[in-house]
């Protein structure tokens, strides 16, 4: 289980978090949904140790940690692929920064490319493929981090509707096939409803949890569910009320 307890952070005595806590079950998909500027991405920066926090504790699997560096993979809305490396080399980057990738790592990358529909593109450079393919490669890299947690910062927001739909299914593989505990930040209500086990509705700064929601039904049937539109309206209403 991932636990964040009593996080506080202020910028120029303006609090972004004040005694903020959350917990995520191992292997769960938690979506942080809130208005732009509420501090969702800042939370990730604090978790990764990119920004120092004023106070608060992190524990993973019962073990206290200063931050999640080395224990969490990170994927953002930008694919962050290195243009001078091939897609295969980009996917294997988390391995390459630690040691020279072995034959086994290459085999894993090939399997992943096949799973993510990138077979035959292994030796392409990022500049030679579409945005959707680049983001799929970023997903392969996220998987190859080999960490128990994945932090996804609006990973689909820069993509077109059709590519988003395809990638939503692939994101779920992180949880179902690779058993990662996922924290995802988004401001897209529909995306949250389709992907999450738990949705945390967040308030504008200082950020707090307005509501914890657990969407009903299996993820692949939610979109067709009669309650889907109602839940979407309800979430939007809660967010609007929380912003006042």
């Amino acid at each position, binding site marked *: 289980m991932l636990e964040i307890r009593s996080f506080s952070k202020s910028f120029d005595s303006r609090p972004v978090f004040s005694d903020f806590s959350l917990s995520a079950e191992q292997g769960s998909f938690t979506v942080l949904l809130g208005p732009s500027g509420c501090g969702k991405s800042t939370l990730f920066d604090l978790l990764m140790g990119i920004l120092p926090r004023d106070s608060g504790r992190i524990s993973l699997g019962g073990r206290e940690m200063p931050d999640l560096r080395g224990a969490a993979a990170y994927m953002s809305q930008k694919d*962050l692929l290195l243009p*001078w490396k091939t897609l295969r080399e980009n996917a294997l980057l988390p391995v390459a920064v630690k040691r020279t990738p072995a034959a086994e790592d290459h085999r894993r990358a090939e399997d992943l490319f096949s799973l993510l529909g990138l077979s035959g593109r292994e030796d392409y*450079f990022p500049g030679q493929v579409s945005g959707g393919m680049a983001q799929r490669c970023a997903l392969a890299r996220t998987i190859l981090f080999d960490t128990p947690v994945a932090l996804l910062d609006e990973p689909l927001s820069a993509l077109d509707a059709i590519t988003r739909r395809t990638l939503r299914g692939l994101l779920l593989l992180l949880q179902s096939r690779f058993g990662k505990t996922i924290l995802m930040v988004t401001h897209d209500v529909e995306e949250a409803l389709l992907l999450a086990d738990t949705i945390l509705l967040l308030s504008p700064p200082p950020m707090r949890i307005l509501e914890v929601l657990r969407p009903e039904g299996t993820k692949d049937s939610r979109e067709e569910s009669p309650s889907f539109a109602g839940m979407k309206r309800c979430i939007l209403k809660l967010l609007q009320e929380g912003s006042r």
Partner: protein
Amino acid sequence: MRQAALPLLFLCTFLAAWEAFCRLFDIPPFLLPAPSRVAHVLATEAPLLLRHGLTTILEILLGILLSLAVGIPLSIAMFFSPALEKALSPLLIASQAIPVFAAAPLLVVWFGYGMGSKIAMAAVIIFFPVTVTLLQGFKSCDPDLKILFSVMGAGCLTTLRHLYWPWALPYFFAGLRVAVSVAAIGAVIGEWVGSLDGLGFLMMQANARLRVDLVFASIVVLSAVSLSLWGIVCFLEKNTVRWAEKKR
């Protein structure tokens, strides 16, 4: 091919006008030799020009190597240590305010009449563009990529190898292109101030004997050397940073 046609056409027209001017007004060769005479000297004095040219080329190449050997580690150190950058930046900029002619006699005193002072002179002139552009390249790195490497737990050297260095390569080559274009200036100025060999020395000797045609021939060789070096750097750049041309 079409790109080369226009400069080539311009060069031919310029040479033809120059040749016509010399012949029409019967200009003495010790004032302004016609291109045909320069070409003749290039052919007849080829062994002499080659001997002195090789010395200058060696000075330029060693000067480039020396400036890279100092400039690359220094820009890396300045990038990773802002305190060092703060301390050295004003000195680096001030060093550019010193005219190269002022430094040349000092370098001859320190390193002697041999090749050492010319290599140092070329290195001094190249050092600044190489160091500054490389540092600029490191600094321009995408902050999101830095975060990615930090999240992966990559250390300084690993990040330098996988991220900063490849990111800064286009900047490095831009600096190197400028550097090789001006390297010849450093070497020749060094030879003018004091030497027994090299194209600068040959030019001084020829000028003293009013062999202006030989001076022009030396300039042609020197220009060919600079252009060749520039071409080599462009070729290396094209083959090293091919990815930069394949932007989405």
